């Protein structure tokens, strides 16, 4: 643990520096932003601040968060802002599966909600339907400091911001300290190789470390991309064109996974996102990778294993520590008749105090996407939540090191990386490595070499 602490602390100081530098630069470049920020945005005469129109009505579409009270708080804040500005606000929440067809329909009809939550790389899929919000993001940068690089990569298309950074759902390991102790594992593994050793020991307790390698919207991505990266593998080169999966590093990553599975790490190609949560709540497994939802639900609803549950950040591979988190941003859609009002509302909801009130109620499920949120008290309030804060910095996006694009989005939604591992991990971790790598390469080439 001490090592991890030190890394994070130095990282913070770097961020603090960048934040100060960013504000300084912004002050030089746009003095009016700072002035209007200081003197309450509604009174500032500046033209860069979007103004709400009295009598406008704004509809926002996003997914249903796991933390029920967090959705309620978000709706309350929006309604409060609406009442203060004479704007009718409607927030519609749908499940993760449902958000994309609804968004696609709105894009196709050129009509629909004024604001839509963009998950992962959607701004790259729907670029033409998302208004340029560079001005608003710059205002936020002036107030809150540097945006998280993953949010930034997803939001920026050809240098323009197509969405306003909203939140990060960090993914870390949730594990049972009692079973770990019983197996003689004193703390959660720091490296993938240690994870293999720990999995072997935990096998003796009958409660394995388990994870999906199937088609789960979140969990299979957040698990297998970081494994690939940790061993130096990648789907495609930084140019976003040359498929690079067929490498020694990829095989190293797969070999590690096979070793881990043979030792006692259990993978489930049939698991979707809810399955590891349920298995954990039911005392069937000793550890899994997930958002904070398992821990939070234990803490606020079940109370069965709260005391013997802890969370840990991602283990490191020979080529470094990597993580992948769920990233959500808000786009103002081009068909909105009141785009300025929509922008004004989003800015108000990102105000530091307002936002921190929301993350406090989200209880650690969400992390803020700007530097100003890096010392969010919600993570300090419960030391067990710290892991979820620690996985933010090593976070990357699917397709990394290439920038997000339509192609990386297609590779992601076809679960090519997870499928490659799943093929090699079939039959107790004895699948054909070469066939798995070749299959992934062919699928990736079909996507990236398509004109």
């Amino acid at each position, binding site marked *: 643990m001490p090592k991890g602490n030190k890394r994070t602390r130095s990282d913070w100081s770097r961020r603090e520096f960048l934040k100060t530098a960013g504000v300084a630069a912004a002050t030089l470049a746009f003095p009016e932003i700072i002035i209007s920020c200081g003197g309450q945005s509604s009174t500032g005469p500046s033209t860069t601040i979007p103004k709400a129109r009295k009598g406008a009505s704004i509809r926002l579409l996003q997914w249903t968060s796991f933390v029920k009270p967090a959705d309620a708080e978000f709706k309350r804040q929006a309604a409060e802002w609406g009442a203060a500005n004479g704007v009718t606000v409607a927030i519609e929440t749908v499940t993760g599966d449902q958000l994309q067809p609804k968004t696609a329909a709105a894009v196709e009809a050129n009509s629909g909600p004024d604001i839509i939550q963009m998950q992962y790389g959607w701004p790259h899929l729907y670029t033409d339907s998302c208004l340029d919000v560079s001005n608003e993001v710059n205002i936020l940068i002036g107030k809150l400091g540097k945006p998280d690089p993953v949010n930034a990569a997803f939001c920026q298309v050809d240098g323009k911001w197509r969405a306003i950074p909203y939140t990060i759902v960090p993914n870390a390991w949730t594990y049972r300290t009692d079973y770990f102790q019983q197996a003689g594992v004193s703390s959660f593994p720091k490296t993938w190789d240690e994870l293999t050793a720990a999995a072997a020991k935990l096998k003796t307790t009958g409660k394995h470390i388990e994870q999906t390698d199937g088609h789960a919207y979140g969990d299979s991505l957040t698990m297998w991309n970081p494994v690939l990266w940790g061993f130096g593998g990648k789907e495609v080169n930084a140019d976003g064109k040359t498929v690079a999966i067929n490498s020694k590093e990829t095989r190293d990553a797969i070999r590690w996974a096979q070793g881990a599975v043979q030792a006692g790490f259990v993978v489930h190609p049939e698991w979707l996102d809810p399955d590891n949560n349920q298995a954990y*709540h039911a005392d069937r497994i000793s550890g899994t990778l997930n*958002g904070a939802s398992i821990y939070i639900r234990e803490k606020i609803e079940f109370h069965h294993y709260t005391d013997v549950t802890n969370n840990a950040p991602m283990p490191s591979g020979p080529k470094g520590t990597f993580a992948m988190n769920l990233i959500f941003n808000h786009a103002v859609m081009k068909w909105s008749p009141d785009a300025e009002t929509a922008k004004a509302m989003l800015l108000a909801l990102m105000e530091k105090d307002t936002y921190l009130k929301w993350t406090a109620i989200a209880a650690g499920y969400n992390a803020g996407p700007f530097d100003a949120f890096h010392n969010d008290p919600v993570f300090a309030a419960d030391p067990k939540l710290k892991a979820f804060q620690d996985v933010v910095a090593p976070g990357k996006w699917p397709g990394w090191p290439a920038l997000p694009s339509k192609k990386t989005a297609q590779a992601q939604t076809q679960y090519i990386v997870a499928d490659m591992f799943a093929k090699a991990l079939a039959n107790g971790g004895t699948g054909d490595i070469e066939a798995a790598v070749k299959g992934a390469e062919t699928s990736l080439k079909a996507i990236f070499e398509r004109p």
Partner: protein
Amino acid sequence: MATVARPALGKRPAGRVIGDRFVGRAIRVYLPLLLLLVVTLFPFYWMAVTSFKSASELFDFSVSPLWVRQPTLEWYHHLFTETNFPHWAFNTAVVATVSTLISLFCSILAGYSLARLRYRGADSIGWGIFVTYLVPPTLLFLPLTIVIRELHLFNNLWALILTYPTFLIPFCTWMLMGFFKGIPRELEEAALVDGATRIQAMVRIAIPLALPGILAAALFAFTLSWNEFLYALIFMNDSLVKTIPVGVTQELIHGDEFFWGELMAAALLGSVPVAVLYSFFVDYFVAGMTAGAVKG
């Protein structure tokens, strides 16, 4: 005056072995019926049990999961107090009823026309009506969205009432073609010879004879609209105008945590009352709607 098929089939010819009454019938009817019932109902039993289990009992498989130890009505209570379930149920019923009626009206006429009347182009029109079925809705919903936008029907139950017939009419029309086809031509021809007009022959002879088919088509149309998910998901925005399948999943699935108790309670409440209604309906047409129509 004819009797209906059921009692006739059930009636045993005289002079059979006495033991057949019980043993034969048990093997022929009761045993398969029992098997079918068990397989069909087990998932419903499981849903019902789940809907009465507390959150912690739900995940506990250390004792038999097939029984509830401390039944709770919490989930049903939640469903009615904390969600808009009554609204969803009402919306679903309205949409399903109206779109079924519209579709039946259209497809009775079209089905009769295509199955009974001879004219040029009938084949290609019948084919055309059905071919629309071959473009899957997983794709069709995108352009349909544009139509709904042009008609300003977003977030309006009429959007569903008017679009559901697009998949109900081809379905019912074809279904009814099958039934109209099965009615002996001579019956209608006899009426025509007696001086009835074509329309009279249709309304007084063909339609009453096809009534079991019409009722069956109504049943299917109602069920398809009752279950419809995609259009309801895309076209409706406010919780108060949603239908059961959409409303329930949106409010009871939170990220990666499922609220099984409420989900299963909603599933049961969204199907059992309808099933009971249906069984009366089926009873009605099995009990011999054709009686008096077929000349014996």
